[in-house]
């Protein structure tokens, strides 16, 4: 269970998060939606302490990770896998080596065990024969899939997805959602997806939270969320320019 408590964050005097309170249930996929620049990625980066808040905390299995020292924090971080917006593959390594990287660095697995795990993950994301390629040699969709393979290499308990379909065509976006759903069914991780790809992302989400004006304005099961009468949620779901959310 991840619990976000009264999280505040500002950049250069501009308050982005104004007291976020959110519970992310174990084994479920929670999607955080919101407009561009609403602070979704900022919130996501607090979940494994890539960013530190001005005030508030993030509890992972009851431990406030914001207060942890480097060694303890690294232990907690090993529970996480992250798929970054641009995949963030290390561009000096092949896709194979990227997926093998956390295993080589953080486990005592033999090279043959690593090979087995990496080939399995690459096959699961449909890149079985592409391991020898460098990130610069593959398409955006392939990078995302390789990033997903790397995020799942350590069999993490929690996986964070930062706008996994941004920059992809609708068909490819759908295939990435399908892949996330399939991987979730296989591994049973707790997933947190940051996205504005609605309503497609709802198909793989158990719960949805909406971030607007620095706060969580609505949270609930996907069904509850879609039926919500909150005017901010309705405006976002119906893609209305007019409404309580200022668009421009």
């Amino acid at each position, binding site marked *: 269970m991840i619990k976000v408590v009264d999280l505040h964050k500002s950049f250069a005097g501009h308050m982005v998060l104004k007291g976020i309170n959110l519970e992310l249930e174990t084994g479920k996929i929670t999607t955080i939606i919101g407009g561009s620049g609403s602070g979704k990625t900022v919130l996501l*980066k607090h979940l*494994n302490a*890539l960013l530190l808040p001005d005030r508030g905390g993030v509890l992972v299995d009851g431990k406030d990770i914001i207060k942890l020292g*480097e060694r303890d924090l*690294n*232990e907690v*971080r*090993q529970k*996480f896998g*992250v798929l*970054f*917006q*641009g995949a*963030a*593959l*290390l*561009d000096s390594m092949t896709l194979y080596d990227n997926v093998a*990287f*956390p295993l080589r*660095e*953080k486990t005592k697995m033999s090279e043959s065990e690593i090979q087995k795990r990496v080939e399995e993950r690459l096959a699961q994301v449909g890149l079985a024969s592409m391991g020898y390629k460098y990130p610069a040699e593959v398409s955006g969709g392939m990078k995302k899939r390789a990033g997903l393979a790397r995020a799942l290499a350590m069999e993490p308990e929690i996986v964070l997805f930062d706008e996994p379909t941004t920059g992809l065509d609708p068909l490819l976006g759908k295939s990435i959602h399908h892949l996330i759903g399939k991987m979730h069914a296989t591994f049973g991780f707790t997933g947190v997806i940051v996205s504005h790809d609605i309503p497609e992302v709802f198909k793989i989400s158990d719960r949805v939270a909406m971030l607007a004006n620095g706060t969580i304005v609505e949270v609930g099961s996907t069904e509850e969320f879609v039926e919500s009468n909150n005017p901010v949620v309705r405006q976002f779901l119906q893609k209305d320019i007019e409404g309580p959310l200022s668009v421009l």
Partner: protein
Amino acid sequence: MISLLGLIGRWTLEQLAGMGRMVRFLFSAFAWTFRPPPRFRLIVYHIKSIGVESLSVVLLSGVFTGMVMGLQGYYSLRKFNAESFLGSAVALGLLRELGPVLSAFMVTGRTGSAIAAEIGSMKVTEQIDALYSMAINPIQYLVSPRIIAGLISMPLLTAVFDVVGIYGAYLVGVGLLGVSSGSYFAGMESSVVFHDVWSGLLKSVSFGLIITWISCYKGFYAPPMATGVGQATTESVVLCFILILVWDYFMTSVML
């Protein structure tokens, strides 16, 4: 007037904070060097990229620097009928000053800029965040091995620069202008002492530190935007050149 003073005060505080961050970055890089896991393979890889791959540019600049010194030295010394001192003038100039400083400039231009650009682009494309998220400290993985490689590579490159520079001057002085080969090397042997050699090499070690430290730091704190990488690269090269010259003055004044 008060607002002007405020601006100056704010700028001064920002500069001091920046310097403090740079020094803390260096201490952190040294501290991570001694923490497990050891990064021997990465150190060897960076010795190759900083040292071996800079060899051609150092060889070329070394030989032409020596040739210019041979030419200039010969015509200056001829005014005093002291052409026989060409060997010692060239050797002392190269070993004490030009070897360490010019080879450091070459490595800054070739490798320092590449380090800043590489780490800067890793920052901008979230690769550094990816390392943190995999519980791998990026300072230990990206910075410490480069600094150690710089400390090892720079004196070796300087030694190469010195040797080819001396032979470049020999080529011009002895081969073209007719200075006797015996007096060229005899003058060198009688005037150069061990202190000249190691003071130059000590300088080059400190320049290796400056180049890798500044380049890594500038890349690591590159502004997170498309122009940020270019800005970090330019700033790292300019700052390296300035620090090399300033530090050279201090080291020379202490070691003379």
